Every structure is written in structure tokens, then in C-alpha cells.
């Protein structure tokens, strides 16, 4: 038997006590939804997980009213130190229930348990711990001596990092003294609903956090339009972001948008080659490439192109695609049929436009949604796959000759979310970083996240920052200026 045929090592799902159906979590209670319910499935097997109630416009109104009442009567009157206690309690509960949350996320999203266990859930806890610490220190957030909460925050999150995106939104909002109405993505509501349970367990006052699964065009639209909402925070596609911006234009609502990206990962000739290859893999194949800040455009200095591509494809040969619950799986399932179709179509366009396609030779399960890791070489800057966000495990490789060319090509995109620089020359690293127009720039690493660091984009990648001290400003106003 081949050593590399690792015996199955599935994470047990017994820790996860699922209900047959889940309602909406409004004002500390589970209630039925007015829109037609939806069955969330596991994208790796297409098996149903649970029946999920969907919120109607009326439900959204109830949720916003509950959040408003909680804000007026409890949360806005509570001291920062006391709000911090709740957040610390939530953070600890997340750590205690980490395995359960990891299993739920993997089941519902399709991403490997190795990532939910080692990346998603630890970061979720870290985010709550970080912002718990800020709750009683808002006067030092750089917004003047007496910053004020905005009120009710409406938050709409995507399916790629369901619980992590919840944490990015809920933790700073609560720390800053806002109450929230959060709509998880249609395909991945499960961990947000478990989070509602954690809020109950933490004794969080009713109505401070409301979770309302639902369709974007119904619940999402109603939340964005609701006059009782003071702030909208959205992470998702640029198209939806644009429509949200149009909807709230001319209102008092504050807005942060974290949208798409087409991140450039720039590898110079003097890079630490083996680590750069690891970084390329992490940049585009982490979370099946369902990452807005993915390094989907690889810019390689021409004189090391062949060596890098050879090492990269050889390294990709060791990736293990399959059951996301298996602890040895590197590449899980694509989140939905819809996304799979989109990735497939874009990859086919890449081929028809003349790029050279390399696909990992691996078996894919019969059920579920799967896409083999794919690398395109000989990609021209004008090709669709070099311009559009694919949001899947597809890498486009382009070349450059000089640092100036690399900077120009990296910046030549309507997006501006992330970039990576690989070089052992520190002065070049700093100079190139200075010239790149992207919100997050990683040097000699990629896709690293930390609650202390702000995150956000330029241009069509959105505006506003999440994370760190900057992340608080999205949920606070300068009290004196009002």
C-alpha cells in the first residue's frame, strides 16, 4: 500500500446536535419566518442538513425594532466594561464549542475541517477577544474624547467564511455599543444560528443580536432599505455592493463595503522559491479560492517563471481533494452548484481565449460540487481570467520583467483588495508595497489574518476598514462633531 494513501481520518460529527429545522433569532427568541423556508445542504454530498426559516420584509422590521429597543433600553446605557464582559464570555464560549463550530462550518460550507479547525474558528474567537478589550477603551480609538455608537447595524455576510465574517461584523459593532441585525448567506446559515445559541448561552440581553437567514432580494433588500437601520456593513460581490450603495445614497446611513478582488501575487527572481510556492498555494487554493483577497493573479518575474511553475505544479500534486470532514483534506467542495457553474464557465473562457490550462489529476467524488485545482499559464493581461474575479481554485500566471512593470500590471485592475510580494530584498519589498494600490499587502506570506490588523479595499473592492482600531471607526461617530 502506498504510504500516501492515508487511511480515512474523518472528524466525528457526533458533537454536532442538529435540529431538523431552525427559525429566525429575533429579540432572544426563535420565531418562524414569513418567507418560504430553505433546505441548507452539504455541498460535498448534496445531502440536506436542516430546514432554515427565511425572513420576510415584515420579519426584518421586527428584527430591526427589537434591535432598536435593545439599543435604547439596555445596550446604549450599559458601560463599556460591561459590554466587554459579554464579549469576553462569547469569545470563551466559541473556544469551548470550537470543535462543534468547526464541524458545522465544514458541513455547511464544504471547506476542509483542517481550515475550520486551524484557521476559521480560532480567528473567530480571536476577533471577539480583541474587540472585547476595546469595549471600555473607545475614548482612545482616535475619534475624540467621547465617541458614540451609531445605533442599529444591519449586516449582510457572504458564504465563504460564514462564522468568521459574522465575527468581523458583530464583534466591533457590539464593542462600539451598537445592536445588530445580521443576515447570513443563503447557502451557509448554520454557524450563524449556532452563534445565536451562544448569545443565549452568554446571557446577552434580548435583541442585541438578531440573526435572520433569508434571501438577498427579500431579507437583504428589506434590511438595506429599512429606515430604522443606522449602518449597513456588507461583504460580498461588487454588483450587490453597488446596488446597496445606490439604495442608501442620500440617507443618513453609514456604509462599509468589502467586495471582490483580483489580488496580484508578485514573485521576484530573488524570492525564497520554496516558500513562495507555498505562498502561491495558500494564496489561491486556500478555501478553494473562495477568498475575496485571494492571490488569483500570479505575477512572476520572467527569468524564474519556468522554475516556479514547475515547482508549483509539482507541489499541487500533493494536495488532497475530497471529503471536507477528513482531517487530511486540503481542498474541499465548491460551496454551491451556482458557484461551480460560474467557475467552470470562466475556466472554459480562459482556455478558449488561448491560455494554457493545467489541471490537477485527481479523482473527484460522484456527489457534491467539485472543481480540480487549475493553473493557467501564458495568460495575457487582456484575458478574461486575468481581469474577472473567479472566486474558485483557478490561478492565472502572468510574467513581468522589471519591478515597474510588476507594479503597473498589479495595479491595472478595477479592484484593489490584496497583493503579495515575494523578495528577499527588503528595500525593494518596501518600495513596491508603497506603490501598490491595494488595501492589504502581504510580504513573503499570503492570506494571513489578525484581529489587530485593518482589512479592506480600494476602488471596486469597497470602502471602509474592518479589524483593528480602524474597524471600530466603522461603528462609531465622533460624539462632539454631531
Amino acid at each position: 500500500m502506498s504510504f500516501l494513501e492515508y487511511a480515512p481520518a474523518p472528524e466525528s460529527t457526533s458533537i454536532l446536535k442538529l435540529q431538523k429545522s431552525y427559525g429566525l433569532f429575533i429579540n432572544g427568541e426563535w420565531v418562524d419566518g414569513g418567507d418560504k423556508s430553505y433546505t441548507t445542504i452539504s455541498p460535498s454530498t448534496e445531502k440536506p442538513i436542516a430546514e432554515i426559516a427565511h425572513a420576510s420584509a415584515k420579519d426584518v422590521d421586527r428584527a430591526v425594532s427589537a434591535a432598536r429597543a435593545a439599543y435604547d433600553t439596555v445596550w446604549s446605557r450599559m458601560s463599556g466594561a460591561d459590554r466587554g464582559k459579554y464579549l469576553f464570555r462569547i469569545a470563551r464560549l466559541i473556544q469551548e464549542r470550537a470543535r462543534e463550530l468547526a464541524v458545522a462550518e465544514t458541513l455547511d460550507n464544504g471547506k476542509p475541517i483542517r481550515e475550520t479547525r486551524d484557521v476559521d474558528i480560532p480567528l473567530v474567537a480571536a476577533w471577539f477577544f480583541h474587540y472585547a478589550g476595546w469595549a471600555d477603551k473607545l475614548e482612545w480609538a482616535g475619534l475624540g474624547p467621547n465617541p458614540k455608537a451609531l445605533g442599529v447595524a444591519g449586516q449582510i455576510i457572504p458564504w465563504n467564511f460564514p462564522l468568521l465574517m459574522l465575527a468581523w461584523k458583530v464583534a466591533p459593532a457590539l464593542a462600539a455599543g451598537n445592536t445588530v441585525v445580521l443576515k447570513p448567506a443563503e447557502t451557509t446559515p448554520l454557524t450563524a444560528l449556532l452563534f445565536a445559541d451562544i448569545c443565549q448561552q452568554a446571557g446577552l440581553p434580548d435583541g442585541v443580536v438578531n440573526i435572520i437567514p433569508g434571501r438577498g432580494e427579500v431579507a437583504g433588500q428589506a434590511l438595506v432599505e429599512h429606515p430604522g437601520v443606522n449602518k449597513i456593513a456588507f461583504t460580498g460581490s461588487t454588483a450587490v455592493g453597488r446596488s446597496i450603495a445606490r439604495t442608501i445614497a442620500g440617507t443618513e446611513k453609514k456604509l462599509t463595503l468589502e467586495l471582490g478582488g483580483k489580488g496580484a501575487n508578485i514573485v521576484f527572481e530573488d524570492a525564497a522559491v520554496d516558500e513562495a510556492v507555498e505562498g502561491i498555494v495558500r494564496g489561491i487554493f486556500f478555501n478553494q479560492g473562495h477568498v475575496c483577497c485571494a492571490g488569483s493573479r500570479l505575477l512572476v518575474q520572467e527569468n524564474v517563471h519556468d522554475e516556479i511553475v514547475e515547482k508549483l505544479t509539482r507541489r499541487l500534486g500533493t494536495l488532497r481533494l475530497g471529503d471536507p470532514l477528513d482531517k487530511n483534506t486540503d481542498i474541499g467542495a465548491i460551496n454551491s452548484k451556482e458557484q461551480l457553474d460560474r467557475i467552470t464557465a470562466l475556466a472554459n473562457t480562459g482556455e478558449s481565449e488561448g491560455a494554457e490550462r493545467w489541471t490537477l489529476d485527481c479523482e473527484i467524488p460522484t456527489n457534491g460540487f467539485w472543481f480540480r485545482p487549475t493553473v493557467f499559464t501564458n495568460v495575457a493581461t487582456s484575458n478574461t481570467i486575468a481581469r474577472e474575479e473567479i472566486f474558485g481554485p483557478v490561478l492565472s500566471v502572468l510574467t513581468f520583467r522589471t519591478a515597474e512593470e510588476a507594479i503597473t500590471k498589479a495595479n491595472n485592475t478595477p479592484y484593489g483588495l490584496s497583493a503579495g510580494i515575494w523578495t528577499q530584498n527588503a528595500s525593494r519589498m518596501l518600495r513596491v508595497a508603497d506603490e501598490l494600490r491595494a488595501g492589504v499587502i502581504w510580504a513573503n506570506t499570503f492570506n494571513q489574518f489578525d484581529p489587530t490588523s485593518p482589512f479592506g479595499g480600494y476602488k471596486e473592492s469597497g470602502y471602509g476598514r474592518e479589524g483593528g482600531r480602524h474597524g471600530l471607526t466603522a461603528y462609531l461617530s465622533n460624539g462632539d462633531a454631531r
Partner: protein
Amino acid sequence: MSNSESDLARRAARLYYDDNKTQDEIGEILDITRWKVGRLLSLARESGIVSISISETATPSERATTGIIPTPRSVANGVTDAASLRGFLTNLPSVDAIGLEARAATLATRSIKNESKRAALDTIIRLVDLTTLEGADTPGKVKSLVAKALVPDASDPTTPRVAAVCVYPDMVEHAVRALGTSIGDGETGISVASVATAFPSGRSSIDIKLADTRFAVDQGATEIDMVIDRGAFLSGDLETVFNQIVLVREACNRADGSHAHLKVILETGELRTYDNIKRASWLAILAGADFIKTSTGKVQPAATLPTTVLMLEVVRDWFHLTGERIGVKPAGGIRQSKDAIRYLVAVAEVAGEEWLTPHLFRFGASSLLNDVLLQRQKMTTGRYSGPDYVTVD
């Protein structure tokens, strides 16, 4: 020439050539005239009592200090002199420590269960160089070590043998004798590895290092674990490091044309940086190493997973460059099955499964074997036993 005269000539020759006495001093010692001493020395040369030979080729110590001694591997890669050696090594892409350690940490999360674990445990045993390197080693201790190497677990005859025993040079004869017909190359039988070259510090003359190596080979060692001159490496004297490996490799040659396999110990704990370790790995391979080995076990840190991953990357790159496979041996500090399994994962995923053979991968370890045996027993019986259910050697 009478017997008494040739005796006298021999004594005079000793004093003159061995003890560097002048003819006057010899005359005084032997109570004869200086002229008589001169005649006796001529007589000694003419009669063959003294033979003088002048070497046409450079002595080892001369060869080790004038440029580099090119090897077929180095020449094929354009390394023919000190400058090209330096150029080759400094042009290697550098190593990003954080990235390398992250890669190793990710490899360490692989979950090896059930039949995979069972197979992994047996593989580990087959790859162990069972080692004793103590000042207190005795023939009895070595004999006991060999017995354990042959039958690691008497309670379970399906237990495989280890690859080799590893001892000091003066213990080689005892290991060879104790093995008898069971001696082999690691796969055909148990190999006898000997450390040599003024192990562990390597701080002696090249002549002594070569004599140490030849002694071990003559005693029957089938593998030599040499140490590089870390002082020379750190001071930038790459030629000395290179040449010493070349000469020790020559000293591994046997009369029949075969050679004792050469493992080159880099002592990564003293080289400190990953860049140094990478360069030393390439240098050792270019100079003729059959294996590159992390550590002596006498310096901390000894083997670490990131260091081993780095060395596996080097042998993988060498293979893609030349088609030739070089072995890797992490040594020191690997005590538990769990850790050893992580190394197997690194070998398979970084270099390739082909490396999981005694010819290409070894664990230098002493206490690891017992932990593997305990894990093995647990898998067979379903119960954990305890340290008294495996033997202390």
C-alpha cells in the same frame, strides 16, 4: 656487512631519520666518530635498511588546502574551483524561515490513523539507525544493542528489524561480530554505521580524520557518519569543508572497489540559519555525500522538522537536476512515534515516497524504537502497556 655492523647502521638511521639527531650527536651516543656515522648512514641506504620515497602526488593535508578537489558531481555542476563553489552556493535561493516553519507545521497536522499508522510504525522501525554513542560504551553494551536491532520485540515475531546500528569506531568490530551473517546494507541485513572524523566536534587534523575513517572501514563499518568542519564553514572557508568531505569519501573506499556509504553530518544546531543549512546540504552533496544528516545528537537543537523539510527539498531538487537520489537522516531528539510519523509525512510529501527506504532515509535515534514498539503493541492488543513491556538496553 656483518650483523653487528647492520645493527649499528640501523641504530644510526633511527637516530638520524626518526629522532632528527645530527651526525655529531649520533657519534657521541654510539661512541663512534662522525665519519663512521656518515659511512653507516650510506650503508643503511644502499643496503635497503632505509628507503626513501618522494611522493609525486599531493598529500591529503596538501590537497585539503590548495583550491578544491573537484568531484564528478561538482564538475557536472560547474564547480571546479573555490570561486565557482562559492558562487554556486551563494546563488541558491534563500530560505524564508517563517514560511519554512509554517510549511513544516502544516505537514505535522496530517492525521495518520488505523492501517496507515500500523504501516507507518513498521516503516519507522525499518528506517532506524539504533544508536549508542557514549564514552561508557562497552563490547557488552554494543552486543546488547545488536540483539535489540535483530529482534526489537521478542513478543511479536512480525516486528521488522532496524536498518543499522550506529557506534563509535572502536566498537565496530564488536557490532560486526555480534551481527555475524545478519550484516547487510540496511535492507539485506543490518548495516554497521560508525561515526568518524573526530566525532562529534570534528576538531582535529585531516590526517587523523582520515585515519579514523579508515580504521572504522577496516573494522567492517558499512556506513560512515562524518562531521563537517563547522568552524571552517562559518568562517567562510568552504574549500576546507568541501575537500575534507571528498577525502573522507575516498577513505571510505574498500580494496574491492566498493565503498562504505558516507553520511555527512551538518550539525545544523551550530550552523544556526536555514540559509547555512541549505548551502551546507548542497556542498555536502557536491562533495560526494550519499546521505546528508542533520546532527550528531550532541548539540541542541538537534533534528527539527523544518530543518529536515529543508534538507528534503534539497535532495528533491538534486534529484530533479540530476536524476540521482541522496539520502536524508534526521538524528537526535526524535523520541516519539508521533514525531517520527510527522517525519515520514514530510519525506513522502516533500521528497516523494521513493525516499521511504533504508537506502534513502534514516532516523538516528536510541529511545524512539521503544516508543514505536509500545505503539505497535497497542495497535495489536488494543491496550497501552508500559515501559516495562519493552526492553531497556
